[in-house]
């Protein structure tokens, strides 16, 4: 393996790891949303269906930035676009 290729591969691997830092945001956001949903259900158990549905949609939207990070990481590791 040439030196330049090795450097690119190492850089891709490090970049993939750095891209997954994006997982922090959705983690915090979804935890916050689910916590609030639990509070809401505890206060008003009869609305649990509507609260749960809304929470899932909110979680899905909050998740998208994390998924973008994941896709960048997957591209860097498996497709190796820079080699």
């Amino acid at each position: 393996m040439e030196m330049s290729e090795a450097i690119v591969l190492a850089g891709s691997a490090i970049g993939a790891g750095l891209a997954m830092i994006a997982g922090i945001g959705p983690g915090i956001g979804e935890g916050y949303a689910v916590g609030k949903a639990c509070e809401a259900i505890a206060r008003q158990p009869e609305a649990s269906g509507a609260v749960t549905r809304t929470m899932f949609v909110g979680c899905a939207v909050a998740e998208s930035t994390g998924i973008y990070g994941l896709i960048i990481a997957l591209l860097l590791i498996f497709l190796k676009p820079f080699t």
Partner: protein
Amino acid sequence: MALFAIPKVLQGPEELNVEGPKVIKTFEIFGLKINFTETVVLEWIVMAVILLGAFLLTRNLKVRKVSKRQAIAEMAVEAITNLVRDTMGKRWLWFTPYIATVFCFSIFGSLISLLGVRAVTSDFSVLLCWAAITFLLITVTKIRYGGVKGYLKGFVDPIPVMLPINILSEVSTPTAMALRHFGNIAGGSIIMGLIYYGLANLSRIIHLQVPVLTVGIPAFLSLYFDLFSDFMQAFIFIMLTMVFISNAGPADDETPQTN
């Protein structure tokens, strides 16, 4: 030294490959390369399964003395109708068949990976196609209720400077939907592949001829990455489709029912 040769299949994965779907044949139409992939074949299988299931569940429907089969069919139809009514409001009830179709297709397309083949939904073009249909429906709804002029006016809504941002948000809606579903399913399958590969290697290190460690342990993770995540993503996809489409039209004049 093993007493007898162990077949290759039982020795567990030796290397981790992550590839796109296999291309079976490539056509060229008007200079465009069209790949006939594994996904297309699997999609037809999924469609046949759904069609067969729908056909079997809806034969000899009766008003009185319903059979068990009919009860199951009625329960499913009622559940999805209630979901659409609660989320979109009564006037959008005619959307139910489309929503139910996408839901079934997404679930069966993801669950087909349990049979050891590639999931249909881990191919990005499938999800992009569904998201494009949603985008089309949103646009048609906007034009239907606001007219072409109103639709174009929506892009310069508060002030004309917002034009690029509005276009970006319009385009990012289907892209984000497709990427979310794809990322979850494809990411889950890659993680499961890594787990199988790692456990097979681990049992090779401690000199087990058959990778015993891969029995049992991945099942619990598969419960999340294959079953739960598949149902969740299908549900989220149809929820977002419903929310976006019903937001494109004017608000329902009657208050939405909650169960």
